[in-house]
């Protein structure tokens, strides 16, 4: 028996839109986090190790030391070198 597919097209579009939003969200998430999953529930230690000094507000992230970013240049960058490059010793940021 013939299925009235024209009548079901709007439902297909709606379901397709769900898929588009899902894919779009994942793409935006990955772009923001350099291809990795986002970090959540960061405590003071994690903030001091990762995050940058975004102006002088506290905001979502903390301020002060931003070790990962100073070592790699990226917010979520990671390296496993035993020793740091010599610039790392003097590029810490003092909040003014």
């Amino acid at each position, binding site marked *: 028996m013939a299925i009235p597919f024209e009548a079901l097209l709007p439902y297909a579009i709606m379901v397709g839109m769900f898929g588009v939003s899902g894919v779009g969200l994942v793409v935006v998430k990955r772009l923001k986090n350099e291809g*990795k*999953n986002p*970090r*959540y*529930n960061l405590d003071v230690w*994690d903030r001091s*190790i*990762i995050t940058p*000094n975004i*102006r*002088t507000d506290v905001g979502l992230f903390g301020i002060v030391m931003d*070790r*990962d970013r100073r*070592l*790699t240049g990226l917010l*979520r*960058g*990671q*390296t*496993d*070198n*035993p*020793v*740091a*490059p*010599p610039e*790392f*010793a*003097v*590029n*810490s*940021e*003092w*909040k*003014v």
Partner: protein
Amino acid sequence: MKAKEWKARRDGKCKGVGSHRSGNGSFVSDALEARDVKPVAPSPLKRHERKSLSSSLIRQLSETDEEVRFHHAVLIDTTPLPDSVPKVEEVGATSAPLLSASYFIGARCKDYNEDYMLCKHEAKGRGPVDCLREGRKVTRCASSVLEDINKYCLKEFRAHWECLDQANHKLFSCRAEEKPYNKCVFDNLKLEKVIPDTPKGEVPVHLKESPIWRHK
């Protein structure tokens, strides 16, 4: 900050952590003293002149002929430590590899770490200045562990910390990668991961075969 409060602070009535009143009456922090910078007595500041503190800081640092980078929110001082402090290279690992190697660093460097913590506890606030020697030992030991892990177990190490990076740095999510990694490190470096304060008679959580909570 009102001018009266600032004057009280300058005269040393307010005791901040890590700062003290130096001989010529200026309000100087320990970190600056350690860097061999001449202190400058701040003039009493009005509210709108608070920014001049940072500019005087910049001025005195630029007197040492080192490059100072200007920025509206942070000050980056590239003056290196004085030559009286022996040089040690900092640990170059970022958060995920460091977390991954942390138990092995603890296994090898337990004595140095405890020395350093005891020194800081006894220094009562002057830790960053008085405990530099113990700190250098800690840095060198941690670097040595990372070097050895890189030499013998690089593939398993990378697999583990890349998994951690994807999983919000939660160790329970990466047990499958952790098993071969722990085995490799134990075989080559003789370092074993031990979770301190595991209750007696209980299997440590990283060795449980089928944990009820928080498994992948």
